[in-house]
Structures are given as structure tokens and as C-alpha cells.
């Protein structure tokens, strides 16, 4: 059951709220206290709406075909992210990027590149404003992360615990606890040597080219966006750095699965790295019917994104495009066709799925 009326109202109010802060965010003179006030205002805004958002999310069923942008901070209108997201679901939610970014500013760490983070904040806020101004009929912004705030501690503990179980399963001789792991390993090289050979290639942190570089290089490349490895090494050992760098992906995936199953939302994943970790963790949840139903759709949407991610949509207005892909029709159709072959989507070859997608889209997305 989808009850949109109050959510539509909230979208407008949220747009008004963040629009007021654009100047403040772009002004280089803005102090950290002013930024903190902005985050507080956003947080208080969502808290005031908590009950009705919770109601909206709790009433969603798998039949409502509601999706959420998973593993990405913002839709990215500039790079046609809205075109990629549109085929996934009848209703599409993206997590409030401001709420997500708050954690970067809560950390007083000097290792964080504040300038980069602030520029990024401006970018995601502007994207959010543009989505809410121009595409509010198609996308919904909600604080999906914060909605669990009541059991935030339990949730984090669960994510951390399950993340470590995944990590330890990567090793030839797994350590029972994190403490044991930290005691055992003193360099990234030692860690790399003990990781099962067949899984090392799956430990992608940046993109597929990671397979050709060492574990340390992967981590350095990944951290460089916000942190420096050298600065980090002053505060923690290599084992801890590894757990943090790899753990964040497993925690992210567990978080995505938790949100998906809790609220019956289809995760829309467009990041190769995130999708890669989803595949690694899939065997663990493949018994859960709801999860399988949702992730089947995730897979089709991901393959669609891989096929049309670089497509030049400029000749097609978004509303025309939406009329072709709305109501989850591409995904539903592919699933229906796979069923008619007596198979689930997961039984098909990627090329088969791609061919079914192409069949559906060729009329409005010519090669």
C-alpha cells in the first residue's frame, strides 16, 4: 500500500529547507559550526516527520515495486543518473544525501580532506535540489538510514559482526575474532598472502582494474578520496586499516540488504563494486524469498544500467523516456519471459538477460 500524499508534501518542505542553505554551503567562509547547524536542521526536519515516513515505509509491499538507490550518494542528474534509475520500480526512493554526509562532518579527524568533502556536499545537495525541483513526480527523497535510529546501536553491532564473518571467510585460516586478526597481521602484504586465491580478485575496492594491483594499492587508491594512508597509519595498524577498508563494503551491503528486506524495497545498484559485493553475499540470503524477489529485479536493473549507462539520452526527454520504462515494466517483462522459460533470472546467462532487455528497449533506445 502506497500512501503518497503526505510524502509529496514532505518533498516540497524538504526542498524549501535545503534550498535556503545553498548559499551558505557554497560560501567558502562558512564555518564548521554553520555547517553543523545545517546538518542539525536537516536531522530535526526528518525527526519531525518520522512517524509518517515510518508509516509510508512500513506499508510498502513487494507488489508495490518500490525501489531505492543503493550504494550511491546521489542520483547524479548531470550524468543521466535519473535515466538509469527510472526503469527500476514504480516508485523510486533515494536516501537523503545530507543525512548520509553528516557522518563525514561529525568526525573531527584531521585525516579527512575537508575541502573535498565540502565540495562533494555542495554537489550532492545541488543534485538533490534539482531532482526535487524538476523530477519530484518520479523520485522520492527519504532518510532511509536514519529511520532505524531507534535501534541504531544494535544495527551497527549487527552490521559490524556480519561484516567480520564475511571478511574472515575470505581467509585460508580465518581468525575467530577481530582482536585475533589484529594481533596476527602486521602488514597489508601478510594479509594479502593469506587471502584465498580465488577470492582476492573479488576484493574490488575501486573498479575492475583493481585485479591487476596489490591489496595495498587498492586500499590507498580507495582512501585517497577522503583520507591519507600515511596519516591513518599514525593512528592504526595495517590490520585495522584493512578491516576498515574492506569492512565498509560488507557493512554497506548488509545495510542495503537490511533496508531492502525490512521495507520490501528493490535495491537499485549501479556501482560495479557494490554489485560485486552483493554477488559475494548473495549465497547467504538466497533462501529468503523476499530477498530473492527483490534482488532478481536489482540484477536486471543493474544489467540495464551496464547496457545503457553510456547511452546518449539527449534526443529523448525524460518524460517520454519515463513513459516507456515506468511501472517497472522492463524488469517485469524480463522476469515474465524468464519464467516462461521455466527459470528464475538467476538461472539465466547475463547475455540472455541482456538480450531480453534489448528486446524491450530497442523501440525507444535504438542502437
Amino acid at each position, binding site marked *: 500500500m502506497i500512501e503518497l500524499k503526505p510524502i509529496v508534501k514532505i518533498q516540497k518542505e524538504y526542498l524549501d529547507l535545503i534550498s535556503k542553505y545553498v548559499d551558505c554551503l557554497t560560501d567558502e567562509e562558512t564555518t564548521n559550526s554553520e555547517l*553543523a*547547524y545545517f546538518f542539525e536542521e536537516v536531522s*530535526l526536519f526528518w*525527526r*519531525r516527520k*518520522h512517524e509518517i515516513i515510518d508509516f509510508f515505509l512500513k506499508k510498502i509491499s513487494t507488489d508495490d515495486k518500490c525501489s531505492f538507490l543503493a550504494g550511491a550518494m546521489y542520483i547524479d542528474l548531470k550524468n543521466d543518473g535519473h535515466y538509469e534509475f527510472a526503469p527500476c520500480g514504480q516508485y523510486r526512493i533515494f536516501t537523503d544525501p545530507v543525512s548520509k554526509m553528516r557522518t563525514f562532518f561529525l568526525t573531527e579527524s584531521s585525516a579527512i580532506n575537508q575541502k573535498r568533502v565540502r565540495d562533494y556536499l555542495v554537489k550532492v545537495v545541488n543534485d538533490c535540489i534539482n531532482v526535487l525541483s524538476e523530477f519530484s513526480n518520479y523520485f522520492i527523497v527519504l532518510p532511509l538510514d536514519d529511520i532505524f*535510529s531507534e535501534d541504531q546501536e544494535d544495527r551497527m553491532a549487527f552490521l559490524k559482526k556480519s561484516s567480520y564473518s564475511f571478511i574472515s571467510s575470505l581467509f585460508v585460516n580465518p581468525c575467530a575474532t577481530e582482536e585475533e586478526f589484529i594481533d596476527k597481521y602486521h602488514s597489508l602484504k601478510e594479509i594479502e598472502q593469506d587471502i584465498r586465491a580465488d577470492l582476492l580478485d573479488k576484493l574490488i575496492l575501486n573498479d575492475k582494474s583493481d585485479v591487476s594491483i596489490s591489496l595495498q594499492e587498492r586500499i590507498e587508491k580507495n582512501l585517497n578520496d577522503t583520507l591519507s594512508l600515511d596519516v591513518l597509519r599514525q593512528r592504526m595498524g595495517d590490520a585495522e586499516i584493512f578491516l576498515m577498508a574492506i569492512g565498509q563494503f560488507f557493512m554497506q551491503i548488509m545495510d542495503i540488504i537490511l533496508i531492502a528486506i525490512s521495507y520490501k524495497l528493490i535495491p537499485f545498484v549501479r556501482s560495479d563494486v557494490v554489485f560485486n559485493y552483493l554477488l559475494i553475499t548473495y549465497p547467504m540470503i538466497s533462501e529468503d524469498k523476499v530477498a530473492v524477489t527483490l534482488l532478481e529485479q536489482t540484477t536486471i536493473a543493474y544489467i540495464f544500467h551496464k547496457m545503457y549507462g553510456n547511452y546518449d539520452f539527449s534526443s529523448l526527454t525524460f518524460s517520454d523516456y519515463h513513459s516507456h520504462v515506468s511501472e517497472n515494466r522492463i524488469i517485469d517483462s524480463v522476469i515474465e519471459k524468464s519464467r516462461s522459460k521455466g527459470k528464475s533470472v538467476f538461472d539465466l546467462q547475463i547475455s540472455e538477460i541482456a538480450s531480453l532487455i534489448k528486446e524491450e528497449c530497442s523501440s525507444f533506445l535504438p542502437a
Partner: protein
Amino acid sequence: MDKDKQFSKLSDHTFKKGVLYTPFNSSLGDQLSLSPWAIEWLPEYLWLALILEQYGREDGLNVVSRIAGELSKIDKGLCIPMLSKIIELEPQKQRIFYEVICKWATRDVLSPLTIIYRTDKYALFYEYFSDFETSIDEKTVTLQNVIEKNLFHQTNEATDIRFLILWFNVFAERIHFARGMEITKALVEYPKLSHDHQEMRLYRSLIRSSEMALRFREGNGDFPKRFWHSLGLLTKCRTFIIDYGEQVGGSVSFLEDAVNTIDYLMANNKESLLTDEKFSVCLGIATYALKIYKEVLESRIGDGILGRNALRTITEVYVTLKYMSLKEQDQPDIWKAFKDYGIGKYKYVILKAREVEPDLEKHHFALPVLEALLNEDKGEEFTNMDTRLFDNQNIRKKFEAIGENDLYDLYYEYDTNFTHGLWGAIRESAMIFCDNPSHKYHTVPDITFEQKLRSVEHDCEYVLKKLFNQLSSFYEFPDFFIDKYGGLDD
């Protein structure tokens, strides 16, 4: 019930124009304007409560004393405890006020209030007391703790705040107490003594009454309302379900014994069953009550709303039965009159149905069956509709007449609330207490249907035994029943 508490008895109340007034309201009447501490005044003084919470009673009183003392030295007009008045001060004076607070207390003490008082209207307050090291959650929890301790106007913590309010006014020379007065002594001694000290019982009440007198001079507009509104929206309801635990249930064996007794009475009074109106009515009433009781047990609705409706009906039919037996001497045909009255009521419904022509496929009454019942004893053209039941006596008088006043007060009157859906019943059964102090202990609808009521099973059986006792005075009961239940009235 807490016997130490002094409550007015029912007889202490005064009945005026349909209302039973409490002795308190009766004497003061419309002159009394209640000013609830929690709702209207606590938001004004939470900043004082936060200081006491942070530093403890002794040091906290000391810190506030220094703040008030210094403010009064700077400008007596600045020595005000009400936050709504403080934030109305011109900016320069506000700054002085906040500087003084920050001199004696750390600024994070008042930071919980910054989730309510934001920069749009309270920029200066925010400037001085914002603290980003503490999360919104932590600030909310602190506020809730402080509110919980001070919500009721007579707690020790609330009295401490009320003492500080007086102190501010004394420092500002807005109030004066003559030497030798009890209140003067109380003001001097109060901060020195712990709440356990025996003198404090008197001092606390003096402090509270003096502070209350001050309130009549002050007005604070929408300030408290806005506070509760802002804080209320930021926090979630905490529903508090009352668990009644294991309860005394009804017994299936009594039901079976009662059914066997009716069976026996029918078999043993076959002739009466065929011709006697009284016998028919008595057994009809008893069976009707038993069927209700069986539904209560089988459907397990004893702890639900319908259970109370069931008990009320069982009680009412018992009273009707006993009342008819009382009136039988003066009105021998009372049993027939009872049936005629009931059939007359049916006739009214049937005539209405014929006019309205409802969709009988969906409607809950079976018109053809009802018509057959109407015409059972005589043709409907000869059946009048008597709007009076017996002597038109009201239900309360009937309970009185048969000596069942307690049954009226504790069963019928209470359960009628549920039948009529009056607020007491709605509140008890369908609304749950919210244990969140920042919501001022409001109630929330029980949409998860978790709240149960005390079960009526035992009471249903109690009234049924009375009914069977009445029946046994008319007809010879089987030995198995008499042996087992003997004096049913007990």
C-alpha cells in the same frame, strides 16, 4: 487502592444541575482558574532544571544563586527566571544575561534546549549555548530526563526550581518577605537542608504556595505551547501496556451444571413448559444469560470490550427477573406483559423495515423470521407497541427495589460505559498511555490491539449464580446443583 491518599467520598460531592461537583470545585466555582505547572510553567524554567541536573542539588542551587546574585547587581531588571522573558530582552541585555550564565555554568549545560530554540527566533540563545559535540539524541534524552523529574509540581526537583523562582524575585526585589515570617525562614533554610530533613516538609509546601501566588502576575503567551509542540514532534511515543497477569477465570463446569439444571427444570416441569408464561420467561432469561456466558468463555472475550457488554446484559436480565418476581404479587400478568413489551419492540422495527425496505441480503436482521415471531402468539394487527416496561421505573430504581445497589454501582454503571462507548471506557480499552514525558503523558490509539482488560469471567459467573438462586426460589432445583453450589448468594 492507596488508602493513605485522601480522596473525597461520593457523598462529599454536591449535585447541581445534573453535575456532581467535587468539594474543591464546588466552593471555588468558576473563580478557580487552574494553572498546571507542567504544561504552562515548566518550559519557562527548564534551564534552571538543567543546571540542577548537571551540578546536583547543592552545587546547582549555588550556581543559580551566583547567577541571580550577579544579575541583580548588574541590573535588577535583568534578574528574571522566565525564559520567555529572557529571550525578549534587547540583544545587549540578553548577551549580558548569557555571559553571566556562562561565567558560572558551562555552556553545554543548556545545549539540550538548542534543539528547540533555533536561530530563526532565538539566535542569541543559540549562539551562546549550541554544542555540536553532543548529538541530538543525547540532547533529547537529557531534556526528557529533566522533564520527567519536574513534570509533577510537587516533586522535590520541581520544588527546587520553584524555590529558585522565588529567589530570583527576591534578588530582583520584586517580592519582599518580612522577617519572622515562616516563608522567610524557609527561603533561608531551604538550600541548606536536604530533602530528607523533617523541616523540609513544611518548607516545600510554603515554597510551592508562594511560587504559585507569583504566577497570577505573569503571562507567558504561547511560549510553553510552542515548546511542547517542538519537543513533542521530535520524539516518539512510548506506549505502556498494562499487563494484568493471571486472572480468576470462569469455570466451564458451572456452565455445564447450569445447562443441566435448565434441562432438569424442563423435564421436571413439562406442563409448565407447555403453558406457563412465567416458566417460559424465567427459563428464557436464564438460557439467554447462559448463552452469553458461553460466548464469553468460548470466544475468550472476557478480557475484551464485548466481555463487559456481556456482563452488563447478564446483570440486567438478572435484575429484570428479580424485579418481576417482586412485582408479581401486585401484577400477576407481569410475565406476559414482559413478553408483550418485547414483541411490541420487534413490531416497531418490523414496521420501520417495511417502510425503509433495506437490502435484506446484507442486513443483519432476518425480516421473515422476525415477522413470524411477531405473529407467533397473536396476529400483529392485535399487537400493541407499549413503550413502557412494567411500571416505567428507571433501571437504577429497579436495582434499589430488589436490594442490589452494589450491583448497579460496580457492575451495571461501570459496564454501561462500554456499551455506550463513553470516554472512560474508550480510554481504558482503546487508548494507551504514552510513557514519554515530553509528550506530557498523552494517550495513543491501541491499533495493535494489545491492551486487554481485567476479565469479566468471574463476575459473569457471580451474577449468573444470583440469577440461578432467584430461579431456585421459583422451581425445585436438582440435588446435584444444590449440593455443589448450595447458598448461591454468597
